[in-house]
């Protein structure tokens, strides 16, 4: 089955799923309105976007140097940096650290790189229990599902579904869980115990600061901080492209991150972790590990796809994408969904030429319009489509497209053909104004009528009129 057909199979299921549609409808206006409000109430917002983009450009232009600096500083602070070329490497490194720490249970903050490496499955297989602590991640861990959104992993779940998951997992009896506050309190109580008992904490990082070897973590819940600072060992799973040169640079990213994601000027918690705790500090890990994943990212440097590495993972592109809003994140069947995922996910698979995701966009451009670092997402999807055309065997639709291009290069011939076609279709409609079924155009007519031509092409009619005049 072709990739496009597989996408459509999932999309049709998503469109028919009333619970999912309810959850998506809730998210739709919320995210869009909040970002719009944040942008409108900050006079410098467009300027902030330019500053953030410049930081990302400068970081990537000096990437090797930034990374060496970062590594030196982490080492100087008493931490360790590990380099993982593949998700498999990352899994092995993390499990080795956990085993060295004698870990039986680990708390986890949200990490998309962890998702990329399917870390939970690997931890379980190694006999280590992963406890997700971000509420959204906790919900989908109970549901045994992957995240459907990079910022709001359980966006696809309704309150009722979450209540059911909690009832099954927590043995609640008849305790009420009708209100959002009750659900949040329920998770808080369960996860609080885990924070206090975990041997290792694994988090992601929103940024790495080269000048001091610091990892920046942004959350609203505070789960990331409790994951990072209570266990004896803190492991940060991230990718090397998160690095920025300085603290001032990090500030420029922070300014646009939450505004774009949730419409807040800043999240409740923004934390800067630099190495293990010092002797006089009461909390903080004894061991501080940073695992840097490549997974095909280095292959994007210096290519037309490099700007994809500017992404700061705010999720604004998917929040504003009408396709994502219609079908949800799981339809993309990829760690990263939505417009940024439609570019990044195929690239991270290493074989981007056979993928539906870059095609599953109407190129409406809303993603690019809201991207805080102005990544030309439709342009990158178009480049992936070009790659697909160059690298895969031609199918019928491509021959049609090429034939159309051939004809278009000969306007006179084109004019006579469209004139003929226009008349033929008008005749077929027979005065009904529209056609319900059209041979060869099933893709159109399955979902909509085809308005009938008015009879004769514009060029033909124009010529006729001018000829008379």
């Amino acid at each position: 089955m072709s990739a496009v057909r597989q996408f459509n199979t999932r999309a049709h299921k998503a469109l028919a799923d009333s619970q999912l549609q309810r959850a998506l409808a809730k998210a739709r206006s919320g995210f869009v309105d909040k970002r719009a409000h944040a942008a409108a109430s900050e006079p410098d917002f467009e300027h902030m976007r330019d500053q953030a983009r410049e930081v990302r450009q400068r970081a990537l232009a000096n990437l090797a140097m930034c990374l060496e600096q970062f590594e030196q500083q982490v080492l100087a602070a008493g931490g360790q940096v590990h380099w993982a070329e593949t998700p498999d490497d990352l899994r092995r490194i993390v499990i080795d650290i956990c085993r060295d720490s004698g870990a039986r249970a680990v708390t986890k903050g949200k990490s998309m790189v962890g998702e990329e490496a399917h870390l939970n499955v690997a931890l379980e297989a190694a006999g280590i229990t992963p406890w997700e602590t971000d509420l959204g991640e906790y919900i989908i861990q109970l549901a045994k599902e992957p995240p459907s959104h990079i910022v709001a992993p359980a966006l696809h779940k309704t309150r009722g579904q979450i209540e059911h998951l909690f009832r099954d997992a927590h043995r609640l009896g008849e305790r009420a869980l009708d209100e959002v506050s009750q659900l949040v309190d329920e998770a808080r109580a369960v996860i609080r115990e885990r924070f206090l008992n975990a041997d290792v904490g694994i988090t992601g990082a929103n940024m790495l600061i080269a000048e001091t070897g610091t990892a920046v973590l942004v959350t609203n819940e505070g789960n990331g901080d409790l994951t990072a600072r209570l266990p004896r060992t803190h492991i940060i799973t991230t990718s090397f492209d998160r690095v920025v040169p300085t603290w001032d640079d990090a500030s420029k990213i922070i300014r646009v991150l939450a505004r774009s994601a949730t419409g807040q000027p800043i999240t409740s918690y923004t934390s800067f972790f630099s190495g293990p705790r010092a002797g006089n500090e009461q909390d903080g890990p004894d061991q501080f590990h940073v695992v840097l994943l490549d997974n095909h990212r280095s292959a994007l440097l210096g290519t037309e796809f490099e700007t994809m590495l500017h992404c700061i993972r705010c999720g604004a592109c998917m929040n504003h994408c009408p396709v994502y809003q219609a079908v949800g994140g799981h339809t993309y069947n990829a760690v990263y969904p939505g417009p940024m995922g439609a570019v990044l996910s195929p690239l991270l698979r290493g074989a981007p030429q056979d993928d539906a995701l870059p095609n599953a966009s109407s190129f409406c451009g809303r993603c690019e319009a809201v991207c805080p670092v102005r990544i030309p997402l439709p342009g990158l999807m178009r480049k992936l489509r070009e790659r697909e055309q160059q690298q895969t065997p031609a199918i019928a639709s491509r021959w049609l497209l090429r034939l159309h291009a051939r004809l278009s290069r000969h306007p006179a011939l084109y004019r006579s053909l469209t004139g003929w076609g226009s008349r033929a279709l008008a005749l077929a409609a027979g005065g009904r104004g529209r056609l319900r079924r059209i041979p060869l155009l099933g893709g159109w007519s399955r979902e909509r009528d085809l308005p009938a031509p008015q009879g004769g092409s514009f060029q033909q009619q124009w010529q006729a009129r001018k000829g008379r005049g």
Partner: protein
Amino acid sequence: MQSARERILGRIRKASGPGQAASAGTADSQALIAAQPAAQASLRPIDDVPAEFCQQALAAGVELHYCDELAALPAACAKVLDAQARLTVSTAQALAHMHWANSVQPYVRGSIEVGLVQARLGIAETGTACFDSRDVPSGLLFLSDILLVVLDGRHLVDRQESAWQRLGPVGSALHLVTGPSRTADVEQTIQVGAHGPRRLVLFLVGGGLAQVVARHTQPAPSLITLASSP
């Protein structure tokens, strides 16, 4: 055989321009890292830093109070704090050695009713309080049901960049705290008290900010009781 590190860095160097040739630690790299592009005009100036701080903090869900000097703080706290509430403090902070109307205990990990902590700095652009892990154990900030933050009214800066300058080197963690803990993971409905404090009560102390704070305070500040949790 090359290590993963060498292979990854090798690919990065090969792919990128001349800037990649410089090695960390050289004067070159320091200059590049510190480079502030000239084209980068700064953001609009924040004229009234205390007012901006109060306004942003309030918008982030912080409950604001003011008292003139540190010595007056226990009395001011007693006015808004339930007499039964137990305070937990960091022994590394001067607050631990003051006389409080409520019972006071040093921080140990576990659930905490009211955490009482002093912030290093406040950042006006977002109404944020900064905590250094050398003064305040991280757990005290995140395990408290209610977080009582004391902030010197003269320790306010306009933006993050100024904060980094003022702070200098920090401990293994620097926590920026802006309002209470919250989540929107259930149907995008904002709910406070996800894992950390359900309420964040901030006392600005000194700096002659009584009037500014008064403008940003709810008409009838609620008594801080433990039953306040939802």
